């Protein structure tokens, strides 16, 4: 009788430990999948950042060239802005 009880308890403990292991295994697997996905995402974003950096350099060049091209217009705009400001001050 005593041995039967011990046997049952042993089996229960074994089953519980199998359950615990299974749970931990699955959770771990989930984590590993998430890590893999995140690593992949990071790689993608890093590639995208590289493209962005190239785009930024290109755009900055374009902006500088355009700025040089419309230098006179920028000066012209400044004159009108100053006139507007002076008028606003005179009216306030």
């Amino acid at each position, binding site marked *: 009788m005593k*041995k*039967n009880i*011990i*046997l049952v308890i*042993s*089996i229960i*403990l*074994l089953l519980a*430990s*199998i359950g*615990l*292991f299974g749970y*931990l*295994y699955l*959770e*771990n697997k989930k*984590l*590993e999948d*998430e*890590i893999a996905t*995140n*690593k992949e*995402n*990071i790689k993608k*974003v*890093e590639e*995208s*950042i590289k493209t*962005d*950096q190239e*785009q*930024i350099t290109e*755009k*900055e060049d*374009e*902006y500088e060239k*355009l*700025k040089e091209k*419309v230098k*006179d*217009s*920028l000066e*012209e*705009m400044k*004159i*009108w*802005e*100053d*006139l*507007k400001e*002076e*008028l*606003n001050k*005179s*009216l306030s």
Partner: protein
Amino acid sequence: MGRSKGRIKQVFIIITLVFFVAMLALSYMMYQKYNNNKTEKDKIVANYQEIMNNKELDDEKIKEINDKIDELNNIDEKIKTLRNDVYKLSGDLEKKIKSGETTKKIAYLTFDDGPYYNTYKVLKILKENKVKATFFTTNVNKEKCYDNKNANCHEVYAAIAKDNHTLANHTYTHGWNRGLYTNTNTFMDAIKKQEALIKEKTGVTTNIARFPGGSSTPGYTKGKAMKKALNEAGYGWVDWTASDGDGGSLPNYATGMKNFKGTINDKIEVVLFHDYHQVTTAMLPEVIKYLRDKNYIILPLFYESVMVNKG
């Protein structure tokens, strides 16, 4: 038999417990691995977040540069808007000046009878001093400039328009003593021809005119009909309230400045100059300084101005 069964149970119990211990050990190892992975995941998530933040910054930077590029591409439109804002505010200031609500004053610098080759010099001085003026143009020079036969005076129109000064109409012929004022038709014909010339050279449609010799030159009756015709054609007209006398004989700088200062008395002045005159050209920086020191804001004329007569 009973003993044998008991032994089997004993062995089974031992095996079960051994497996149990083994599973516990494996679970512990799995737990350790889980913890390690969790730490790694947290690091990766933090890293990912940082990279995403950098990406967002890059995206913002790209947007910012694109906006700046758009702004530069639309700069002419922006200047046009600013110019309209300035006209609107100038109108408001005129009202305040007229009602005595401000001590600020306005001067409209106007240049008649051009364009000449010398107009380039005038434009340069105006640009250096950040002044916008009004050019009452005529075709007396035609394509050859009197003051530089090698220069094409029709090209000067574009230079005036490029600097956003007000282009105004001083008739095609300027022939105040050569049939311009014979009747309303001869006058309006000269207005329309000059309007077409300016439009062709710059794309600007004029809406402010000045009578060669002044609005009294055609005489009262003829003048009245001409002013009505101008109004019907969408024009306002303007005379002047101040000048340096460069339309007559202006011998030198000192006389020019004396003449000019002697006529600056009103709160809103329309100053008459001629862009061919060397003395006036030389005087310009001092004229601008004088007006600014006297609390004048120097502006280009615009159709809605109180100084532009309608009808």
